[in-house]
């Protein structure tokens, strides 16, 4: 059986920054998975992703969110990025958890992703699942994870990119 699910790269912030970017992603896998533990230094922002530095209005996503009180669903189209969810500063040691499954990232169809944003603040929190679309057929070779309004993420914020290779 073919062995798969390999780490491609990990970035841990050694100083505050508002983005983590994976460049020169090899086209040798079938799907990509991103795992992120992150926060913001103060206030809140939206944690987002963008492909190949495309800043056009070529992204859309549909969400399903539970916040401890109710479940809601929203849809966004013609956006300049796919949003995971809001990201909020938390008590020291508490982090938000984001994952992304990016299907057929080197394929010839539009790119579909399944994202999860998990945040628990010991009294409040949310879980958001979403499906996103980048309306472009280009192979993904760069992924930018960033805070939409450029609020800084603290030292220690970590993102890992994995590749899954199908037989």
């Amino acid at each position: 059986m073919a062995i798969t699910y390999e780490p491609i790269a990990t970035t841990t912030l050694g100083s505050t920054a508002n983005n983590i970017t994976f460049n020169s992603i090899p086209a040798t896998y079938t799907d990509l998975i991103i795992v992120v533990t992150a926060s913001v230094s103060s206030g809140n922002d939206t944690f987002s992703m963008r492909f190949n530095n495309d800043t056009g209005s070529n992204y859309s996503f549909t969400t399903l969110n539970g916040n401890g009180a109710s479940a809601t669903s929203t849809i966004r189209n013609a956006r300049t990025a796919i949003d995971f969810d809001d990201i909020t500063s938390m008590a020291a040691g508490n982090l938000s958890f984001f994952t992304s499954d990016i299907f057929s990232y080197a394929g010839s169809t539009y790119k579909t992703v399944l994202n999860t944003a998990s945040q628990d603040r010991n009294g409040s929190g949310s879980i958001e699942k979403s499906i996103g679309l980048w309306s472009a057929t280009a192979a993904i070779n760069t992924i930018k994870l960033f805070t939409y309004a450029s609020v800084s993420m603290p030292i220690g914020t970590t993102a890992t990119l994995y590749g899954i290779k199908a037989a």
Partner: protein
Amino acid sequence: MATTSLARSSLKTLTKYDSFLVGNSAYVPPSFESIATIVGTGASGTITFNSIPSTYTHLQIRVLARSTLAGNISTNLSLRFNGDTGSNYVSHRLVGDGTSATANASTAQSNINVIPISAALTAANIMGAAIYDILDYTSTTKNKVIKAIGGDDQNGTGELYIGSGLWLNTAAVTSLTLFTSSFFTTTTTIALYGIRG
């Protein structure tokens, strides 16, 4: 001494471990392995994985799919175990359609149908995506349970589904069949993975 010829394909998937010498990092066997991948033909609405090895603890199916069904934005993607067409399947799902979140359930079904895929009315190049996890599939004492997430986003409309499913049968799962209305497009890819415990 006998010699063995290795196929080029096996060399391509080989993982190299540098050394078992004392002082080097311990060898950790891989736990997530690709078993098989099937690509849609444009002429069949059924994809079956047969003779699934029993050497794993769990299975994962990763789906990027679209149906040729005319006149519809989306259609069913159904899952069946060991060719069982009886009314032995149960499912629950949570749905977000961009406007509201709803939940529903089905009992006594002939398959698990919790995640739809894109169909012919969807704009070109848009695919449905889904991930199914099938837990403890070799057990002969437990009914089989799955969880799934998927849907599609069509840049203006979209649906996200979170589902669970139950097969009321304690047999080990040896084959999986996924089927849809009409045919899977040639851009469809369904991959089966094994996860070791």
